[in-house]
């Protein structure tokens, strides 16, 4: 790396010692940044600096750093997952920034995602939505030969589009109502589009929608913010399908 390409930025980061502690923004200068560096690698440098000065590094979550595990999630300059479209923050690179920029970094903000420490939040509520019906009840070894159940290619592709969700929670954070409808709609859609999911369609739709209420997620008011920030470009059409599934389930269910 050519030294002349290196630059510095100031990051303003949310610091909060624990779930019940008050938080505040703190500013740090980070130098020696190269354009090929990822945003999280820039935070790594910040943390190594803090550690060497005897301070406490900034807690933030990441794991695969290739956009698939869903661990990372930051609000960068007000943008959920940063300025790039349909990208996780771990895929954001410093070539999008310039020398001297002031970058504001905040945690996911949603009633259902309490802050644990600094930039890390608890997204366990999403797992509890899946437990409420985001599965097909077939025991291991019980299924027929895989090719015994043909699936229309277009439907299979549409199911895959929905299944691509990485469970990062960006949809909840971007929604003014804190709704988890894109997340839930994607799972309901995936399983409704596949014949294997057919027998439990009604039960699933009722169970997962009820669970969204129980967990404290809000409702949809057609803002489309969730689709705009989704790293996997999951479409709001999945919410429409969830609503149809829920309505249909209400009509036919005896519950």
């Amino acid at each position, binding site marked *: 790396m050519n030294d002349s390409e290196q630059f510095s930025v100031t990051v303003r980061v949310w610091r909060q010692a624990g779930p019940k502690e008050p938080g505040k923004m703190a500013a740090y200068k980070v130098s020696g940044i190269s354009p090929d560096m*990822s945003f999280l690698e820039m935070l790594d440098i910040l943390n190594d600096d803090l550690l060497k000065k005897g301070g406490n590094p900034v807690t933030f979550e990441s794991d*695969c750093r290739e956009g698939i595990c869903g661990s990372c999630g930051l609000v960068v300059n007000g943008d959920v997952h940063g300025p790039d479209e349909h990208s996780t923050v771990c895929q954001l690179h410093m*070539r999008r920034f310039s020398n001297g920029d002031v970058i504001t970094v905040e945690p996911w903000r949603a009633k259902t995602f309490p802050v644990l420490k600094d930039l890390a939040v608890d997204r366990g509520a999403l797992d509890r939505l899946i437990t409420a019906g985001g*599965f097909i009840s077939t025991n291991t070894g019980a299924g027929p030969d895989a090719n015994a159940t043909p699936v229309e*290619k277009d439907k*299979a592709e549409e199911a895959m589009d929905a299944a691509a969700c990485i469970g990062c929670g960006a949809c909840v954070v971007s929604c003014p109502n804190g709704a988890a409808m894109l997340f839930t709609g994607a799972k309901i859609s995936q399983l409704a589009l596949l014949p294997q999911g057919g027998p439990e369609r009604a039960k699933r739709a009722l169970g997962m929608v009820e669970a969204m209420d129980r967990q404290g997620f809000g409702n949809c008011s057609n803002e489309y913010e969730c689709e705009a920030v989704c790293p996997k470009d999951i479409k709001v059409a999945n919410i429409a399908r969830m609503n149809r599934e829920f309505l249909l389930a209400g009509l036919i269910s005896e519950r």
Partner: protein
Amino acid sequence: MKLDAKIPAGPIEKKWDSHKFNLKLVNPNNRRKFDVLVVGSGLAGASAAASLGELGFNVKVFTLHDSPRRAHSIAAQGGINAAKNYPNDGDSVWRLFHDTIKGGDYRAREANVYRLAQISNQIIDHCAAIGVPFGREYGGLLSTRSFGGAQVSRTFYSRGQTGQQLLLGAYSAMMRQVAAGTVTILPRREMADVVVKDGYARGITARNLLTGELESHAGHAVLLCTGGYANTFYLSTNAGSCNVSAAWAAYKRGAGFANPCYTQIHPTCIPRSGEHQSKLTLMSESLRNDGRVWVPKAKGDKRPPNDIPEAERDYYLERRYPAFGNLVPRDIASRAAKTVADAGFGAGATGQAVYLDFRDAIKRKGAGAIKAAYGNLFDMYYQITDENGYKAPMRIYPAPHYAMGGLWVDYNLMTTIPGLFALGEANFSDHGANRLGASALMQGLADGFFVAPATVGGYLGAGKFAPASPADKEFTDSAGEVRDRINRLLAVKGKKTPSELHRQLGNVMWNDVGMGRNEAGLNKALKKIPEIRGEFWKNVAVSGADKDFNQTLEKAMKIADFMEFSELLVRDALERKESCGAHFREESVTPEGEARRDDANFSHAAVWEYQGEGKAAVLHKEPLTFENIKIAERSYK
């Protein structure tokens, strides 16, 4: 240490069936009285937990993630192998078995690999049944693609996200059991120790990563589904939290560690861009279906790749291996890339890269077809490099990826500690000295969905269990030892960050213990590693408190284990004076420069037994015998 692989008698096709019949069963009403602790929630852990839960066992799952869905299996891209023979191209259980043994360079156990090939088909059936959206043809049936080391098309896939879809399938099956009350998930727990009582694995010590509390959990069996150790090399394709710690703790409690030197270097990764790099990103092997690998024919040719005419390109894989071409196995493709780069033919500014070119495939099939098959990979490449893979060839280079070595297990996937099982990448069992592409997902799910539920049940059904509880001395002693180690780390208060020291270790591992190994380099590493470890314990900086959400401490604990484990890896590499699969000893090559095995002296699994701190581990050998496959020089020409 006695190594009894417990391979069932009888012809290889019948072994698994007859073994399942001979295993003891637990009465359905009694199953809930057995507590099974599953550590790790990737493909192996999630599928084992789901299946054991369905059977009615009382399962606790421990994951260091905030959600079990984030385990690193999620990042597997290309696919999962199965011997379905749907394409009618001559595949069979026998051929998958054969390809896997050959792919592993005749260093895996025949009986285990045959069982894996048999189970492969059941995995596809089950995953389709639980809603995994596999790629399909217009007729509605499943589609397959080709992977390295096979001349049939047997790899099932979900675009470039097969690991994600299979993991989410296993995860959803497990969450169904959470709803059913048979499985309890304990997220943000890192296993710190295995608790052994009266010679049996009876529980674990885990650290709650949010509060720092050490917890003791007792059970009747412990399943380690904790993945591989490629992060020993610092830079690898693994996620940041992947570690060797659970397997290392088991080793220190008496579990044999097998073939630690078998580490796979994946040929198609995005090259590193600088010192800051925290990880390397894999580009799926499936890209080699359509991408052609080449370097300039002229040394140091720095022209942009599209300006280099056809006649001045060396498609070295197609040239050297005409039968398999770009789809040679990973170890061979990686070494070939290193050979051309070391000789000065490497591509790009650093010369540490080769081209993966889609020009011809786009011309033949259209950009749309390439996008449909690999769109997400091209997007990822663009996000990381700012370069468009449709317009110019990608630059790729090998990177540490997968560990074939792991805890030694018998046919039941039980380690040398009774009651302690190891599944998936954490064990050593199926891939020999080199894993074929799309076989990791197959093995993780075979172990978890089908093998462990039978063999763990057999173990529980046959055993008589003395009581065990967290109040026992063994549990409190274990927690005490873990606490001491944590306190030691916090007391160092040094000047170097854990990552800096890890990077130092990684440089030694990559330079001296990487794709090419020789006695001098390995001895050099054996000298340097204890020095770096010494520096670590004198000069590591870990701030913050023990009883807190402390990511620096978590990291330092993992790196402390890499500092010890790496030495065993090198000793194993030094001891194995042959080349086989991914283990390439420069002293042992054929006249054409290919790996030369030494079957007379090394046809065994090398199993290491811990002797205590500061003492040299003792080597045991499990001889490998081949009754069903004719052992031969491994050729892909």
